[in-house]
């Protein structure tokens, strides 16, 4: 890989030249994660907090490294990266290891990783690259719809088969958001909406009773207070009992007494909300909104369509994870095992978002560079 070298590139330049507003907001949110993981472990840096700190540092390094990649190189590798990840998904299908009842992990001997997570980047890269080469007037032509739909649906179906319905849906939503941003005629979105809505009753009546129940519980967990609903009920108790100011760091009873599952990963917001209250929760939400606004300003300055779609696609994906996770722990959305970006403990999630942020920094740093078609 060749570094971008149009400008004089001292090490200082390479490090200080990136968008530190974005990195700063990323680190601020990451610190919320460190704090909460410290608290969840019984006010201890082990086993999660210190690793999270380490990962944040590595993530910042990785972002700066990616930021210094040549935008043209990134652009040209888009399809290759997408293809490699699709191949990895097939490999998971064939050789992946079973974990928690689903096949998601690929063991490469040294590292175990989830290609489905990284595929979020792959899809955004491939779609951005595809639309870079298409005029606005051609976007809604049938010929130019088929390829993006294939780019989205092939990995989504592979992920769905793992089975990981939540991630598959997120991949589809991220993909179609880029189609929307690229200017696909709203007619198609309406058609898709009508199609989904009208097929629903037919599908529903064909489902077995227990399947219907499972879906109903999926959407209304309190139907099953001792099973699937238990976690949501306990999570709501945790958040609600935090009140305005919270119980204080380390004093959240719901988490410390194990009423919550996955408290350092998917349900980490519950702990944070229980311990810091409404005020703390608003601060965290504010940090995410600030980061998204910063990304919006980055996108506005970009010259290339590829870059704009890349930043917007990653922004959408960041918002989706943030929104779905919070909605889930507050009992507004089904439990779909989506981590809270930068806050939840977990390597793959943080790695994926760091790569995405790195790519955003990369296009931001080379805002004036054109990549061709």
């Amino acid at each position: 890989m060749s570094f971008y070298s149009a400008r004089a590139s001292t090490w200082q330049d390479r490090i200080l030249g990136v968008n530190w507003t974005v990195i700063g907001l990323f680190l601020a949110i990451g610190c919320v994660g460190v704090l909460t993981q410290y608290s969840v472990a019984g006010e201890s840096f082990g086993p999660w907090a210190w690793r999270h700190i380490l990962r944040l540092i590595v993530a910042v390094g990785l972002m700066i490294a990616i930021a210094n990649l040549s935008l043209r190189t990134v652009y040209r590798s888009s399809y290759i990266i997408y293809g490699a990840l699709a191949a990895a998904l097939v490999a998971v299908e064939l050789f992946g290891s079973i974990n928690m009842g689903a096949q998601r992990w690929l063991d490469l001997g040294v590292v175990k990783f989830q290609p489905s997570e990284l595929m979020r980047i792959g899809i955004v890269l491939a779609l951005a690259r595809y639309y870079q080469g298409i005029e606005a007037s051609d976007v809604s032509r049938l010929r130019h719809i088929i390829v993006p739909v294939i780019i989205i649906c092939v990995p989504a179906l592979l992920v769905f088969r793992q089975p990981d319905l939540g991630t598959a849906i997120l991949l589809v939503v991220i993909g179609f958001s880029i189609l929307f941003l690229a200017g696909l005629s709203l007619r198609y979105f309406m058609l898709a909406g009508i199609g989904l809505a009208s097929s629903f009753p037919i599908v529903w009546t064909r489902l077995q009773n227990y399947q219907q129940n499972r879906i109903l519980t999926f959407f209304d967990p309190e139907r099953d207070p001792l099973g699937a609903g238990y976690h949501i009920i306990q999570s709501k108790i945790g958040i609600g009992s935090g009140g305005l100011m919270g119980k204080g760091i380390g004093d959240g009873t719901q988490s410390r007494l194990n009423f919550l599952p996955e408290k350092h990963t998917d349900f980490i917001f519950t702990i944070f909300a229980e311990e810091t209250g409404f005020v703390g929760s608003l601060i965290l939400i504010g940090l995410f909104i600030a980061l998204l606004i910063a990304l919006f300003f980055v996108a506005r300055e970009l010259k290339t369509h590829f870059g704009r779609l890349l930043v917007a696609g990653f922004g959408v994906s960041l918002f989706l994870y943030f929104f779905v996770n919070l909605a889930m722990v507050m009992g507004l959305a089904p439990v779909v095992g989506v981590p809270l970006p930068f806050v939840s403990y977990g390597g793959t999630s943080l790695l994926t978002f760091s790569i995405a942020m790195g790519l955003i920094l990369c296009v931001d740093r080379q805002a004036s560079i054109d990549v061709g078609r």
Partner: protein
Amino acid sequence: MKRRKEGRGEVFSRRALIMGAGQLALTGVLVGRLQYLQLSQADKYATLAEDNRVNYEPLAVSRGRIVDRFGVELASNDQNFMVSVVPEQVEDIDRVLSHLQSILGFSDQYSAETRKLLTKAPKFLPFTIADNVSWEAFAKVNLNVPFLPGVQAVVGEKRSYELAEQAAHVVGYVGSSRNREGRAQSSYFKGRAGLELAFEDNLKGEAGNRRVEVNALGRIVRELERRDGNRGDDLSLSIDAEIQKTATQVLGDHSGSIVVMDAQSGDLYALASTPSFDPNQLSSGIDEKSWNELLQDDHKPLMNKALAGLYAPGSTFKMIVALAALEAGVVPRDHDLECTGVYHFGGQDFHCWEKDGHGVVGFDTAIARSCDVFFYDLALKTGIDAISAMARRFGLGRKTGIEVPGEKAGVMPDRDWKRANYAVGWQPGETVITGIGQGYILTTPIQLAAMTAALANGLHLPSPRTVMGSESEGSQELGLDPEHIALVQSGMINVVNDRRGTAVRSSINIGGMKMAGKTGTVQVRRISKEEREEGIVKNEDLPWALRDHALFVGYAPLDNPRFVVATVVEHGGGGSSVAAPLSARVMKTALARKSVIEAQQALKAEQG
């Protein structure tokens, strides 16, 4: 490089703004939800979180002992050897169960049952596999504990009744109330009968409790607050274990009751009822078959016959009739009458037990020889209402108020009672048989004992009590002419000590201390005219349930009476042949204990 068309960027900007607005709107939903959970509903969720976290746990305390007047244990707490397992620590439950089975020897069915219960039990709480394990088996399990991870050999408490059957009815028994898991580690006892039931509140003590913080699985994380309880109070009885034992022993296989009471204070020295049951067995969990046997036995082992057995007093009632007649002044003290063996009244023949008659008898001799004709006549002269009123002054037909639960009132009939309960009014013939304590009249042994105590002390009717220092209802003054009392007492002395007395064979002399008393034989069947002419069938030839009840009431010594005995032997035969000798044996034991008891009483009085 071609020039990009301008449209692309504009479309993107517009749509990115729309999308950003949508994201803001969705974030607004999140903030609204947070506001609802953390501000509007904060109190509700704070309460729920607290409920989640805090549990109350009771802390068991030892139950108070029950001791006799000298501190001899009648009910105490023994070690209960138990074997339990903590499910989460067990590696191989089948191996553990089969190993325990080989030591403890429970059935395969029990093993399967236990295995099933174990799957549902909380993983971290000890689950009792067996309790009341023998010391040998317990020691073996203890030896094997290192090789059986999860198995615990623990020592708990169980209720133990030292006198077993001999004091079962007065002491009672407990049931263990296990908590909802069915077989929890510690058992709490609850009085189910006898004084264990009556004094439950004193005996159980005050269970402590602790407030604990629990995690989602119910496992205790830490103790927030602890309040230790107070062990139950010991209950000190007036019962003397030695007299109680003798009373039960002399009854033997009979079905009946012996009450021994203090003639002055009403303190009960013995309250025996036979046949009995083993309270140890009932307290540790009796099997259904044995329980049904107890319920169906026609000798009614579960019934406390001293309080709940209802018997016509028979001839033991004659003293009351005599006192009623003397007080009413219907006859002088030297009144006499010739007994010919039969009394004619209202076209009916009322027979004396002495077929050939007693000849001329007065108060003294009529009581001593238990002449029926004398009392038929006396009853008629006195009238039922006066007799009834006198009987009530002696506590007959009404509960004595003893602390032991299950007492019955009995019946002391009079004209009003008859009118209230029957269509026909009182018949004069009914007064005749009431004169010898038969007919509607029903009393309990404890009432007879209290009555006898009043006759012995001549001044007051004591309230029977079993618990030392308990507030008795207070004795009632009799307000009778001492000369009348003396006349009746002389009759009672002659029952036992005159050579023609009905209980002369049961006379005793313990260091000069003698007994007075009165026999009673109560018919439970009607004797027909034909049978009377052909010769009355002997009791031994009758089926058990048709034989006469044998009664005896007595007191000793003659001066300053200390002990009263009241004996009822159901279908036992004659009062003089059966009840009097048994009473004499009990009285001998009691008199032998007299100096010890009085020394203790003196000591108590000095201290108190």
